[in-house]
């Protein structure tokens, strides 16, 4: 991939400010594999830290909380036991959509840690994202009636372990209220379904509300660029 194409991977706003001088620098020397990987990491970093705060994590958290709340209400209102044949399959679409929405929300929470995210923050992000992806795959498999067994529970538990680590990291970065709520959501996520889903819904609604308030105040993950 040429230097121009690599620079083209950066966000448009970033390129408007630094693109030309970065291209000039790249043209001044030969580009090795390490440089290309470094540029890919730089482009990812620039996308994760946009000049203007992205509302995506907040919207994702709100969507996830709404879906989880709807699922919890359906769960509480249904007249049959949770292990009623076919019930869980019918409830799956809401959970699948909720897990999809939780992924960008999780990334948004990690971005709150800033550059000094620390080993726990990075570990939490990796485990939470991997766990949510595995959970999503397991749920999709269940929706296709391939499997609905312990793998789903294991994936969900891994997702919650990563989320809990993120919560602890947030609390350790002076974001105590948000961190406690996130860790609380993770704990609720491993509780028995009848109790866990309502608590999960309440905790994520509180997390989403906190993110909305912080975004409105301008306390959102900001990019390194001065907008």
């Amino acid at each position, binding site marked *: 991939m040429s230097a121009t194409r690599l620079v083209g991977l950066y966000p448009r706003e*970033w390129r408007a*400010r*630094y693109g*030309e*001088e*970065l*291209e*000039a*620098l*790249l043209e*001044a*020397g030969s580009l090795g594999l*390490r*440089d290309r*990987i*470094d*540029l*890919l*990491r*730089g*482009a990812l*970093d*620039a996308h994760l830290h946009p000049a203007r705060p992205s509302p995506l994590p907040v919207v994702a958290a709100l969507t996830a909380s709404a879906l989880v709340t709807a699922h919890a209400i359906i769960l509480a209102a249904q007249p049959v036991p949770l292990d009623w044949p076919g019930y869980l399959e019918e409830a799956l679409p809401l959970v699948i959509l909720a897990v999809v929405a939780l992924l960008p929300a999780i990334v948004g929470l990690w971005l709150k840690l*800033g*550059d*000094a*995210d*620390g080993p726990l923050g990075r570990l939490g992000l990796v485990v939470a994202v991997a766990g949510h992806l595995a959970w999503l795959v397991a749920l999709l498999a269940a929706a296709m009636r391939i499997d609905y067994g312990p793998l789903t529970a294991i994936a969900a538990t891994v997702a919650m372990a990563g989320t809990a680590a993120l919560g602890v990291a947030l609390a350790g970065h002076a974001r105590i209220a948000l961190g406690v709520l996130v860790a609380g959501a993770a704990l609720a996520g491993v509780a028995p379904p009848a109790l866990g889903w309502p608590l999960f819904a309440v905790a994520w609604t509180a997390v989403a509300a906190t993110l909305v308030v912080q975004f409105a105040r301008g306390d959102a993950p900001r*990019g*390194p*660029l*001065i907008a």
Partner: protein
Amino acid sequence: MRNELASLGRFAEPSLAILLALSGGPKHGYAIMADARALTGERLGPGTLYATLSRLEARGLIEGLPAEDRRRPYRLTEAGAATLRTRLESLGGIVDAGLARLGASKGGPAANS
């Protein structure tokens, strides 16, 4: 001021290298990379260089000057110079204490065994 570089996390070391490079006068990206490597022995990748430059600029520690033939020089601001001085003094204290302890042990770790 003391924690300004620490708040940059994984960009703290590249930041120190860039501030050191600019302490000798304004430089553009390529010259910063060359100077930083000569000073620290570590090579800054182009992606890391610009991710760090943008952070330092946003924090007011460096500022961009008008571009010259597509290359924009950067210079240290007063805040950047103060941050660099604080960090170097802190490192100097560590170096002094370490050398004093090595001197006191007269021969290094083997002398204590």
